[in-house]
């Protein structure tokens, strides 16, 4: 940890204390959750792009909600319901502040990023798209948007086109300029690729979308956790991310939409809490954002999400980004020292906090299993980017992804496990 402290702007040792799970040992029986007697290796958790760990403050905020003001929101006028309603509604304000939105009317809580994509695809896409229209995505899209827009396009007769990825893992911006044409109604793209780590030129793509009168939907699942994001400055029309990737709970995600656009879109889910007035014949809708939040929402999760954003702001997003960039650059350098390791995505340090890679002659699942034998948790598979993996010529890849609590020692543990796999399979 000594070397680490020289380079990190964060006091990682202190931060780690806030995450009880990081003190866990693993390696024994997996059929009974939690640490057992046969779990004897200290956990090295490098699967943060899939889901991050949860600090005490978040769990405690949710526990406090359940222990002291658990009630349904909006419709109650009793004391607990009012407390819960205020907390739930203010969670929208907190998210708006965190990502630079104008206010709560632009923040819709969903289950996750995937549902945020689907919400707009169904509520806007299914209504507005038709033959001759086009949705432009990128070859590095996550299935969350790729499959969603692909299927909505099929149902509406619209076309889809994917902006190509260059050899070094960037978007081919010449191709972007060609692909985004007058027929384009929606440009939907990842801010940071969860497979390549590429940071895409958001402003440029948003501008291109707007030049042809299209909307821009930015998938921020991998960017909001590790950098300061300002949806207003990027001028995105829609933006999405998930609570569970930024120290928050599962079960809550965010759809940001410009208020004037959300006003025009019909609801996606119907039911209670989203209506203003109902007769047997017809109904009218609540104001934004409630018209998109039918039924009892994720109240405890909204409380947890607020605590997660407070936690991140206390640590400081700039410092989190600097810490992750340093760790990622270190992992990139160490892994590329092996001749038989291919690291995907752009070189250099302008990357999200992850490295995707393959070891020649060893399937990514075997590599991940061997890492697991060393208690190093990484992911293997196509990372919900199967078409991208087809273009990479790899059925699967291994991915290590970092967060504010990871250390250089943990990167060393990864490298040692990879080296062990090399020797086993040599």
């Amino acid at each position, binding site marked *: 940890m000594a070397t680490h402290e020289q380079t990190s702007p964060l006091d990682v040792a202190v931060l780690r204390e806030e995450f009880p799970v990081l003190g866990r040992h693993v390696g024994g029986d997996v059929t009974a959750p939690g640490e057992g007697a046969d779990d004897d290796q200290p956990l090295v958790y490098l699967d943060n792009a899939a889901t991050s760990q949860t600090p005490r403050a978040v769990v405690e905020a949710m526990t406090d909600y359940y222990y002291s003001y658990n009630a349904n929101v909006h419709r109650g006028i009793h004391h607990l319901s009012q407390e819960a309603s205020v907390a739930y509604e203010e969670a929208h304000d907190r998210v708006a502040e965190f990502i630079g939105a104008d206010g709560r009317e632009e923040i819709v809580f969903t289950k996750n990023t995937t549902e945020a994509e689907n919400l707009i695809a169904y509520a806007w896409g299914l209504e507005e798209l038709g033959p001759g229209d086009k949705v432009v995505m990128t070859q590095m899209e996550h299935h969350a948007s790729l499959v969603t827009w692909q299927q909505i396009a099929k149902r509406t007769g619209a076309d889809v086109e994917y902006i190509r990825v260059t050899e070094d893992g960037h978007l081919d911006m010449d191709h972007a300029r060609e692909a985004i044409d007058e027929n384009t109604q929606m440009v939907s793209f990842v801010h940071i690729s969860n497979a390549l780590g590429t940071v895409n030129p958001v402003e440029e793509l948003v501008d291109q979308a707007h030049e042809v009168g299209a909307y821009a939907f930015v998938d921020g699942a991998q960017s909001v956790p590790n950098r300061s994001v300002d949806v207003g400055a990027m001028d995105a029309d829609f933006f999405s991310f998930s609570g569970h990737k930024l120290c928050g709970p599962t079960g809550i995600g965010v759809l940001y939409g410009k208020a004037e656009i959300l006003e025009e879109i019909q609801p996606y889910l119907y039911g209670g809490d989203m209506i203003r007035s109902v007769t047997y014949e017809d109904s009218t809708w609540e104001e934004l954002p409630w018209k998109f939040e039918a039924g009892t929402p994720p109240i405890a999760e909204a409380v947890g999400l607020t605590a997660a954003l407070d936690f991140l702001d206390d640590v400081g997003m700039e410092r989190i980004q600097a810490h992750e960039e340093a760790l990622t650059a270190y992992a990139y350098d160490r892994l590329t020292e092996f001749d038989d390791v291919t690291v995907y995505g752009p070189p250099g340090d302008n990357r999200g906090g992850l490295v995707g890679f393959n070891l020649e002659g060893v*399937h990514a699942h075997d590599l991940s*299993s061997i890492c697991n034998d060393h208690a190093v948790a990484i992911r293997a598979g196509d990372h919900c980017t199967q078409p991208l993996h087809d273009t990479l010529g790899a059925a699967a890849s291994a991915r290590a992804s970092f967060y504010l609590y990871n250390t250089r020692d943990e990167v060393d543990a990864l490298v040692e496990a990879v080296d062990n796999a090399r020797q086993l399979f040599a």
Partner: protein
Amino acid sequence: MYRQQILDHYRNPRNYGELSDATFSHTGENPSCGDEITVDVVLNENEAIERIAFSGDGCAISQAAASMLTSELTGMTLNELQELDRDDVLDLLGVEVTPMRIKCAVLAEKVAQDGAKIYHGELDELEQTTIEG
């Protein structure tokens, strides 16, 4: 999981290849890993497996299991094949396979069994064998 025997079968798979005179042939995949295996079988007049080969690629567990299983299947009747279950494959492998990797281990067995079922008309020919995670 990565004992010497497994790595040996992975590096030098037994019965690897194709049989041009196959009585039946079937392919299956494990989409979450990208493992893919084709099994070719030549039967004798008693519906016993005279020769068997597999091809495809994937992780060490799926390939080693295919190599070991095909060695075991030679001489077996199709009825005996259908009676095998996943524990038989796990016993053959002789190592503890973690829960998330069991689908890799049983792919070849499932492909052989589905291939035999299709041959007997018990399964639709278009049926793809997939093992989901």
